[in-house]
């Protein structure tokens, strides 16, 4: 594994935006907006923790 794995996840946002720009998803704009919100939150979380001390307690089990 290399450090690019996190960026691979973030890269999904790029492919989605390209699809969106092509017009394929214009029929359901609100859903696209919600998906983009999710992606933006994930990218934001990543960026906010860049350079910060690793804190394992932040990585919680999901129910």
């Amino acid at each position: 594994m290399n450090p690019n794995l996190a960026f691979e996840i973030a890269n999904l946002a790029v492919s989605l935006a390209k699809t969106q720009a092509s017009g394929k998803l214009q029929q359901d704009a609100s859903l696209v907006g919600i998906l983009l919100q999710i992606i933006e939150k994930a990218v934001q979380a990543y960026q906010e923790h860049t350079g910060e001390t690793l804190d394992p307690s932040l990585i919680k089990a999901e129910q």
Partner: protein
Amino acid sequence: MMDFISHQRSGIAVAILLLLLLPACSAHYRIHPGALNATDSAAYDALLIAQTTIDQARLQLQAGQLPAEAKTALDVLVRSYNVAREAWLTYRASAARDNANLTSPVYFDQLTKNLSNLTDAIRKFQEVMSK
């Protein structure tokens, strides 16, 4: 219509930002202080992104803003996340116990496999949503 244009702009803004940041980030990846090694740090980032995706998607689902099919994909994503998290914790414990650079390849391979599955689960979740 205005909402869509706004969303489209924000999406494109994210894409442009990522396109600008990704080459620099991959070339100059900053390992988190306190991380045992680069693997530990990158796994932490991937899990953080996945966890935020899950939490945010769950909120949207509860608000009725996602299609019913998203629930199944989200469940798969949650399972993949929890498995990857366990593998990461096991890897960390092993690396802390032994030398961080001499950790058993078994733990490393398991972590790599589980994080790869997690990435696939995120991708599938997004595919379901964008169908």
